[in-house]
């Protein structure tokens, strides 16, 4: 195979879409150049044009303007030739769920024209890399989410392409599978000299790329190495720790300061980014300076991402107190679960799960896909009957009074259950009515939601036309219409970009501070640091319960004295499977 020095080149590429009467620009005059070999990350908020760019490069869309050159082939003139040479894994890679792992591989080997005599070796290699070797006879539909994604990648790689396009390959994938996916990508780059363009919503993944393209609102902001992005932030990134104040309180205090651009709770403190030339002043911690340590740290791409986008006016706006009138929490128990079980036929989805959540706590339910967290969640919301054990929510036994318990809870479903063809206001009005609010109270809550969630400018837009971040806000507001004391959030941040995720957590913290109990599931392990306590589930069982610090301590080893939440998760899962 002859190596072209340039794997992918965009010259002045623009693309618009027409939805109804509106013309939505997806990409504006984008120039791009990918040298052969290596991994280039494609990052940007939702709606930045990442998927459009991928599809243009794959010859699936025709640009309105500009030239696209893929491995020396003009993508406009000969898309089929482009498709012969590249591999592309769309965001929702379509595996044939009614075909087995082996049959899926055979199909893609046929389609990509892998000669028969090379197949056995390549299959063996890919099955080894993906760890799917033991499951070749299993139907793809019966694999876990992470395994499906690995199989999708294996199918794309059956005949090693010269250019590999991966559209958010790691979204919704548990940390173990995510790590394996990256290992496969690196290996292909090293051994086959492959060029990879990979879009991602995980900012930490950008640091693993050789080169990063940052997109925003259809425009290319910059393209350079992740270090080049983060270097200007040297001296502006700090890790703040306090022995006395909780992480959440510390973060809120930092965010309130003018010199602070961003403050996120990470495993061991608050990662804080300041404005150009500013440091965190000592008076920020009046009276407790002795208990607070501020340590400058190496900037990372994620810091630069937030700094650049907030300079562009896209940063999350500070969220004020949501003003829910819940009485300050005592130590009252809001959710109590004892030996909870759920069986589906012979399959035990949840077995012997016990925990309790106090009022005003943020309680996280963590686990890979299929670990049983959604099943547990649905039982607690009264959506699924309990097979055995006890579950009390807001003092009501779910077996006897699910309806009464439900009136006290707010629920935000994973897919944001909104009516796509109703406007934002109509959606809010509907949910207010559904919760039985009438008259002045009804109006008051709708106004409150529009105001507090900054939805007022979009109140007449159809919910289906909103960006994912705004949909999430609307769904969140809808779940709060009746001022519930307990809030259930099922994967609220899945697929939502980093900016919207930060905003979401700020709101959630405010809610918890005003006494609302929050039960949340997530597969973003770093988000577990926002929780007071977490449970990690695997195969329907509880692996551990405790505060994030306690969980991380479990994973402390001489090699890794300060494990991150993700390290701890992987460690515990691996420990759990070794024990079997």
């Amino acid at each position, binding site marked *: 195979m002859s190596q072209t020095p340039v794997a992918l080149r965009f010259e002045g590429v623009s693309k618009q879409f027409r939805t109804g009467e509106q013309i939505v620009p997806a990409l504006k005059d984008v120039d791009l150049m990918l040298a052969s070999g290596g991994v280039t990350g494609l990052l940007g908020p939702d709606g930045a044009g990442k998927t459009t760019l991928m*599809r243009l490069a*794959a*010859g*699936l*869309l*025709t640009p309105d303007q500009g030239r696209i050159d893929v491995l020396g082939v003009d993508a406009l003139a000969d*898309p*089929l030739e482009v*498709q*012969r040479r*590249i*591999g*592309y*894994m*769309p965001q*929702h*890679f*379509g*595996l*044939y*769920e*009614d*075909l087995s792992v082996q*049959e899926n591989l*055979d*199909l*893609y*080997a*046929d*389609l*990509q*024209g892998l000669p028969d005599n090379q197949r056995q070796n390549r299959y063996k290699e890919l099955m080894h890399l993906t760890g799917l070797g033991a499951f070749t006879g299993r139907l793809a539909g019966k694999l876990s989410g992470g395994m499906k994604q690995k199989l*999708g990648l294996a*199918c*794309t790689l059956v005949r090693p392409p010269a250019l590999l396009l991966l559209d958010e390959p790691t979204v919704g994938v548990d940390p173990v599978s995510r790590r394996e996916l990256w290992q496969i990508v690196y290996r292909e780059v090293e051994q086959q000299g492959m060029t990879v363009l990979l879009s991602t919503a995980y900012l930490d993944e950008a640091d693993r790329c050789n080169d990063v393209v940052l997109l925003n609102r259809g425009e290319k902001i910059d393209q350079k190495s992740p270090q080049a992005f983060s270097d200007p932030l040297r001296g502006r990134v700090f890790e703040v720790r306090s022995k006395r104040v909780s992480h959440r309180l510390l973060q809120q205090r930092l965010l309130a300061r003018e010199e602070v651009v961003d403050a996120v709770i990470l495993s061991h403190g608050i990662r804080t980014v300041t404005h150009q030339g500013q440091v965190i002043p000592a008076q920020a911690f009046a009276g407790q300076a002795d208990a607070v340590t501020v340590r400058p740290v190496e900037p990372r791409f994620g810091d630069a991402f937030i700094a650049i986008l907030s300079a562009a006016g896209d940063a999350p706006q500070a969220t004020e107190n949501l003003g829910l009138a819940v009485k300050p929490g005592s130590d009252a128990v809001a959710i109590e679960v004892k030996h909870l079980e759920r069986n589906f036929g012979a399959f035990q989805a949840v077995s012997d799960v016990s925990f309790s959540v106090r009022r005003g706590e943020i309680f996280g339910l963590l686990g890979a896909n299929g670990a049983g967290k959604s099943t547990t969640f649905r039982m607690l919301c009264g959506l699924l009957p309990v097979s055995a054990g006890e579950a009390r929510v807001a003092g009501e036994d779910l077996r006897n009074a699910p309806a009464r318990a439900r009136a006290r809870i707010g629920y935000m479903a994973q897919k944001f259950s909104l009516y796509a063809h109703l406007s934002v206001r109509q959606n809010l009005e509907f949910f207010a009515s559904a919760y039985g609010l009438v008259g002045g109270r009804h109006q008051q809550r709708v106004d409150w939601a529009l105001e507090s969630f900054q939805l007022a400018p979009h109140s007449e837009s159809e919910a289906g036309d909103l960006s994912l971040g705004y949909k999430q806000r609307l769904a969140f507001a809808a779940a709060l219409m009746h001022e519930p004391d307990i809030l259930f959030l099922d994967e609220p941040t899945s697929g939502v970009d980093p900016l919207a995720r930060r905003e979401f957590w700020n709101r959630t913290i405010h809610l918890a501070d005003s006494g609302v109990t929050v039960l949340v599931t997530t597969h973003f392990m770093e988000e577990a640091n926002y929780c007071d306590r977490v449970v990690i589930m695997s195969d329907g069982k509880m692996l551990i319960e405790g505060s994030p610090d306690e969980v991380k301590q479990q994973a402390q080893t001489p090699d890794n004295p300060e494990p991150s939440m993700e390290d701890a998760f992987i460690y515990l899962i691996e420990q759990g499977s070794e024990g079997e």
Partner: protein
Amino acid sequence: MSDTVRYGTTRRLRGMVRKEFLQILRDPSSIAIAFVLPVLLLNLFGYGVSLDARNIPLAVVIESPDSTTASLRGAFEQSNYFRPKIYLSIQAAEAALQAHRVQAIVWMQNDFTRKVLSGVQSPLAVRLYGVDANQARITAGYIQGVWGNWSAAQSQQNGLNVTPPAGIQPRVWFNAPVLSRYFLVPGVVALVMTLIGSMLTALVVAREWERGTMEALMVTPLAMKEMLAGKLIPYFLLGMGGMAFTVAMAVWQFQVPFRGSYLLLSLTGAMFLLVSLAIGLLISIVSKNQFVAGQIAVIVSFLPAFILSGFIFDIHSMPAAIQVVTYAVPARYFVDILKTLFLTGNVYPIIWMNFAALTLQLIFFTALVWRNSHKNLE
């Protein structure tokens, strides 16, 4: 280069066809449409739906029984067409008619015997349940038939000087037993093939869009014509299998005569199936969602094949405007071919004319499919 391309084509096609067959085998709904549905439809139209008037419930009102009324009552009882029930008063019979427990009333009034013997015209009163006009006409005809035969015999017996009216001796061609099953069952073949060709095909392609497999397929070196062929071949074979199965059941289980050539049936059936497949692919291009694709398929292909093809309703008796519409329905031509091959035999002019019409439709729909299928997402 061209060698590797050609080699690649067969390999890609092989992959697609194999995948499609595996999916058919694992998806109970495809098997159901191809083999279970024909059984259901054949039983429904073979046994359940009958356009024949047999065992018509009939109220016979006899106000003053005697040997004459008993003789006429006997004539109705012996007829295959009627299941008479005797009433003594017209009120009771009318109540039964109102409740549609009987289809008609034959009323022998008090003076019936006298009128018969004196040769007075129309001694018998008849009331019909006229809601279904067709059924009422058929019933009236049969009553008239029984009455005509009986009164002729009666006159002779009584030595009355009535010359029997000139009789009509009908001879029914092609469907001698006058069974509607003979007429309906061949049409079921067209219905089954429409379902496999248009509905199933539209659904499976829409399913690929819905599950995201289409986007992944598009970025492989698979060319558009290979993708289309990969879909056509398996469903063509499935459709021909469905046809063979349906025809076999029609001939063996339902004893419908087959008077034409099986070769002609296969040839014309293949042509009709290709038209149906082209329509199915066209639907899947318009709609990328299984629900909508299913609805469109029912409205544009299944219902017309049912209603406008001459399968049940005679095209000649439709309003002129509707008759024009039927020319656009492929099933119309195939139903005509089927009925000819089953009941009449190889009547070449009819068969070739319909075959030519199907060929034109195939060209038209294939061109539309070809023009509208692009290998991209726009």
